[in-house]
């Protein structure tokens, strides 16, 4: 069965006719061709598919696109400044070598943005707990933790 969905993605209204079972992540990747959001496990374990739905980080493999009807979605492609300047959280990942293969990175950044909005100066332990739903196989999390701590502080300072 085909169904029409409409939502706002990265500030732009989008709509499409899709199969009812289409996951939000498939809609984002396949229909909108925004391939920065990744699929690592399809079981809500790895967090590579994390996007923001109405400002909160969610795993886009865990809901169907219809559930996002009318929602405001933010993906990794729209996090940097429109002139291309990295967001302070993205910059912190770069400065702290918080990424290697890059596959988990968009999900890490999207999750970190949500976390940092309520944790302007997080402790190492708070950051580790915030990463419960995001897996990385490259970094041992060492530099991701440092990146998020630095990024959160940079975001707070920029306010």
């Amino acid at each position, binding site marked *: 069965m085909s169904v029409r969905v409409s939502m706002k993605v990265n500030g732009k209204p989008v709509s499409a006719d899709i*199969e009812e*079972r289409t996951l939000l992540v498939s809609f984002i*990747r*396949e229909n909108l*061709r*925004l*391939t*920065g*959001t*990744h*699929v*690592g*496990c*399809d*079981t809500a*374990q*790895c967090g*590579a598919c994390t996007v923001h739905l109405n400002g909160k980080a969610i795993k886009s493999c865990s809901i169907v696109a219809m559930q996002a009807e009318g929602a405001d979605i933010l*993906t*990794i*492609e729209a*996090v*940097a400044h429109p002139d291309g300047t*990295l967001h302070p959280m*993205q910059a912190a*990942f*770069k*400065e702290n*070598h918080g*990424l*290697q*293969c*890059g*596959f*988990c*990175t*968009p999900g890490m*950044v999207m999750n970190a943005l949500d976390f940092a909005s309520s944790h302007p100066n997080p402790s*190492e332990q708070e*950051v*580790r*707990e915030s*990463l*419960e739903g*995001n*897996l*990385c*196989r*490259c*970094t*041992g*999390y*060492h*530099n*991701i*933790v440092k990146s998020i701590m630095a990024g959160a502080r940079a975001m707070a300072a920029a306010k």
Partner: protein
Amino acid sequence: MTTSLIGARVPRKEDYRFLTGAGQYTDDVALAGQTYAAFVRSPHAHANIRRVSTDKAKRAPGVIAVYTGADLAAAKVGGLPCGWLITDVKGQPMKEPPYPVLAQGKVRHVGERVAVVVAESAAQARDAAELVEVDYQPLPAVASAAKARSSGAIHEIAPDNVCYVWALGDKSAVDAAFAKAAHVTKLEFVNNRLIPNAIEPRAVNAVYSRADDSTTLYVASQNPHVERLLMTAFVLGLPENKVRVVAPDVGGGFGSKIYLYAEDVACTWAARQLARPVKWTADRSEAFLSDAHGRDHLTVAELALDKDGKFLAMRVRTTANLGAYLSTFASCIPTILYATLLAGQYTTPVIYCEVTAVFTNTTPVDAYRGAGRPEATYVVERLVETAAREMKVEPAELRRKNFIRQFPYQTPVALCYDTGNYEATLEAAMKIADVAGFKDRREQSLRRGKLRGLGYACYIEACGIAPSNVAGSLGARAGLYEAGEVRVHPTGTVTVFTGSHAHGQGHETTFAQVVADRLGLGMEQVDIVHGDTSKILFGMGTYGSRSIAVGGTAIVKALDKVIAKGKKIAAHLLEASEGDIEYDKGVFKVAGTDKKKTFGEVAFAAYVPHNYPLDKLEPGLNENAFYDPTNFTFPAGSYVCEVEVDRETGATQIVGFTAVDDFGRVINPMIVEGQVHGGLAQGIGQALTEGCAYDDTGQLITGSLADYCIPRANDLPLFKLDMRETPCTHNPLGVKGCGEAGAIGAPAAVMNAITDALGVKDVPMPATAQNVWRAMHRA
């Protein structure tokens, strides 16, 4: 350019695209007319296939084609080849059973491919795959290495399920040494099977063009040329020049993306039949079932010592589980890359190792980060630590007593270490880890109801397997060199093509540092290209921590040629003799004068050769090199792990981890530290959380990320790292490689710490709370 780029923490060139969602991984590639493949996989570990019925699937919505093993057999598609021939103790070649792309009448592990459905959408392909009816006749299955020899044959050519029995070392000398030993330490353990789990699942997208009879394959691969060579020459019989393999951004490999997989072949073959692009991306369950696994050794190891604690001999017997088929490099992992490392950092004069490699009804096993070397280090370092405790000697002291201190050092197990300083890394690690303060910390922990333990691991690694002719004499069916090309553009900027492949290692940055430093250019004037057989020279890709030592050296050799030709051009332009031209920091100078030409001016002259010695020199400035190393490189290091174990639950927390490594010269310490962090995480994962489990019928019990626990952020500490440098003596950069070290050294360090905390001889890996609790209560 004033300061050297070697040793500089240069931020990565690749980060911007990954941080903004602009990376291009295989699944991100969408082609006109795209179709999608789904595989029908065996639910049985061992079964005869009586019948495969595809009628219903073929009639399902959106289905374009369904292929079975019969279709591939009719098309004479070959089996997957093994890249290393092991010769057994009797001089006979290993048993090499056929490894079909789609099952031929029989399945031998859960997840083996039986049929492939191609449809207009991924969902339609999956739906239709459910409609393929396979009539299986289940057979008895065996999953464990221990039981393989006494179980029914999996392959006709190996009636006892033995692929080979192989040995290295002087058995009679070892037995004689054991006979006169003052002390013998013996351990028996399993090196647990691991499932790699790169976060990007394997993926392939194949497209065929009838217009020029060419095939392009996008694939998540660590070595696109090897993939192409194996697929064209051994499986599909296609001309190599008509096949292009592109490995774009690849989301982690850890060994699992080295191999030629059946899915790659099936999609490529289907794309050629249909003349439409065919894409397949593994879901996580498929990754668990079909990515080559790692480790899985059952080992009895003994160390003989004299009364003063000097090592006299080591004797090791290992049964290695190869799984149901021989994956691409499976055969050399528990042999050439394992037994040769058993000397570790020590002067053990004689060593004997016997390996029985067996087939079981499990997913094939191959190289996973470290590949043989973590298993060897685990043997050596668990033995040494246990011997120290048994002889009541400080474990660090026993190691010092036996360290190799003179180089080059010829081990009794074939390797010749060129350089190292094991005392230096151990001393630094003990200082950083504050070993002196451990007793106090142990008491403090006890007061909180926790058992605290400290463990060491002093590892050695052999990277950049080489030279090709020696490897060939040991059974390698491939070369082990690397290729590099330096293309200087007329304006003096540079594009470098490398046969190495990065899937997280940051070569675009590290290699650019080497090039920019050598040529005296800015980082922005250098680009590194990899991962496309239509662009790069025939290269061997990335595995075994070889990229900087082999790939980096190939680039340096090409750079030397560029500079040599540049000197000739500069000599002409400056009307000087070639011998008087010096090159430094981007400028060709006549020695002792102020006459000079910049690199850009020389490049321009080479491409606009108006004032140019055309009678003696070709125009252009483009050089390449193939580099075949004369020896392995030998990174080494000392790790100190400190754990706290909860007495009530057995839950183990790593409270301190210090790693001091000697990787020779380090190009980018930030990137190298990142490699160590990641390796440590995987090594700690093996020790604490990761354990692949099959039940007795060959069903994979740990088939998801909920059952198989790769470490999460909360499982790991902040690591304390330092480095010591003894430059490699046989490559121009003095580099050794760093990608696998952490995974090699960490498991023994963690398990030495846990057994210290508990006061027991051994705890099986992974040391889950349950395993630790049981060990506590047995003790």
